[in-house]
């Protein structure tokens, strides 16, 4: 379903140094698969996720979604993005819109749904993430965990084929991580294709099909969550796991 082929991506830092974010990066994510990407800060895991819906430009390589190279200039990227839900570390809810409007806006603007239809979809999803009671509130009136659940509902409202989570629980207070992970686990069990950048190994163990460990823009090691817990092979993997577990 998703395939990255030999992707290279470098960043320029403000002081004009070059940082290699992705180096000859290739992987595949199949339909219905839940892939967890772990790795130290700066290893390129978020960059990879952001490349999957072209929030970043790449230097070379291809990213194919259902066989279409999304970096092809002829591709309408907005059509591709409609099919990819993204959840951000800092939620990025629209602060000037109510909770309900956050979930209905893109449905109306992008999917061209009527207001009634969009509201119906939104209410269903807000109920699913357990936050329907706050539909008239503004994001600033919600806790971090509630905001992130609204952000998940907002992405789901587009009925995406794949959901991406970019450190979705990293900015949350510890007591709120659980409520967001629960929503993500439910999605995984329902068969959603998911690419999840996280440090939550418990989540990886419970629902992931595959874990990718990245460092310096490359895949160091990949396998099931059990493999990472029981016998990680590479030294760098062992070191990293010892730091986060």
């Amino acid at each position, binding site marked *: 379903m998703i395939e990255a082929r030999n992707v290279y991506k470098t960043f320029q830092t403000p002081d004009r140094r070059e940082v290699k974010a992705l180096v000859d990066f290739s992987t595949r994510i199949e339909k219905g698969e839940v892939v967890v990407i772990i790795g130290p800060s700066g290893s390129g895991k978020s960059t990879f996720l952001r490349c999957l*819906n072209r*929030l970043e430009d790449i230097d070379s390589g291809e990213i194919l979604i259902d066989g279409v190279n999304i970096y092809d200039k002829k591709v309408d990227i*907005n*059509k591709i*993005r*409609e099919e*990819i*839900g*993204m959840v*951000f570390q*800092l939620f*990025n*809810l*629209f*602060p*000037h*819109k*109510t909770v309900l409007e956050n979930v209905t*806006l*893109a449905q109306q*603007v*992008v*999917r061209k749904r009527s207001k009634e239809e969009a509201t119906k979809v939104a209410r269903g999803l807000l109920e699913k993430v357990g936050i329907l009671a706050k539909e008239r509130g*503004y*994001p*600033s009136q919600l806790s971090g965990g509630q905001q992130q659940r609204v*952000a998940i509902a*907002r*992405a789901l409202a*587009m009925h995406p084929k794949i959901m991406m989570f970019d450190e979705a629980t990293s900015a949350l207070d510890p007591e709120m991580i659980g409520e967001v992970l629960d929503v993500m686990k439910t999605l995984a069990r329902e068969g959603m294709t998911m690419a999840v950048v996280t440090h939550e190994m418990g989540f990886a163990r419970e629902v992931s099909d595959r874990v990718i460990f990245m460092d310096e823009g490359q895949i160091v090691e990949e396998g099931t969550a059990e493999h990472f817990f029981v016998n990680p092979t590479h030294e760098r993997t062992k070191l990293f796991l010892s730091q986060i577990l």
Partner: protein
Amino acid sequence: MTFNRRSLITLGILAIITAGSYYFFTRRGITYIWHWESIPEMLFYKGAKSADDPAVRLRMGILMIGFVLTLKISVFAIFFAIIIGTVVGISRLSSEPVTRWISMAYVEVIRNTPLLVQIYIIYFFVGSLLRLSAFTAGTAALAIFAGAYVGEIVRAGIQSIHKGQMEAARSLGMTYAEAMRHIILPQAFKRIIPPLAGQFISLVKDSSLVSVVALADLMFQGQQAVARTYHAFEIYFTVAFLYLVMTFALSMATQYIERRLAISD
């Protein structure tokens, strides 16, 4: 609001300054016979206008006619300044260099030349070419002038919105234009209301400069009235007060809008 000892000291100093200056001006001041009684009829009067219009009714006096024209010029100029400013502000951030350069050149040229010169150029040169009325030329000059400042304010406003907002909107499949319209600009406008208010207050006051192209605004009518009656002090105080009425109303209106938009904070 709580008054304390500091408020008392401040009030005391203020009273001393007031008393002192009153003493100074009455003792050493000029001899001037005030004619405030001539002011009301410059605002409103009841009577016939001319032989052609002999009906006796309540009519606007000369200053009020000027007030209305200044109001009209200001409203049109603010409206177009917002449009120009929004376009310029977005263009300044365009990824396409020619658009960026043109908008930057516009801002720099307009901000770095005197408004009075611009009014003359637009009225005498552009106005003659395009056969513009004094009203159109004067209003256009003000809108173009304020548009450059509004453009910079809008640009700063857009840049102050966290880039995650654009990313979230784009990742939902919105185009750049849709994201701007629904997500970025509404938030940016809310944030730039205070500097915009300041800019528009300046515009109302700067509109007095269009009197130089014989546009009969408040300032122009005030000068006419002074030329006829020599009651310079009373008339200019009244003119100043009428400008204050407009700008203060604008201040209040923007504060009201600001409070209403603060609902989502």
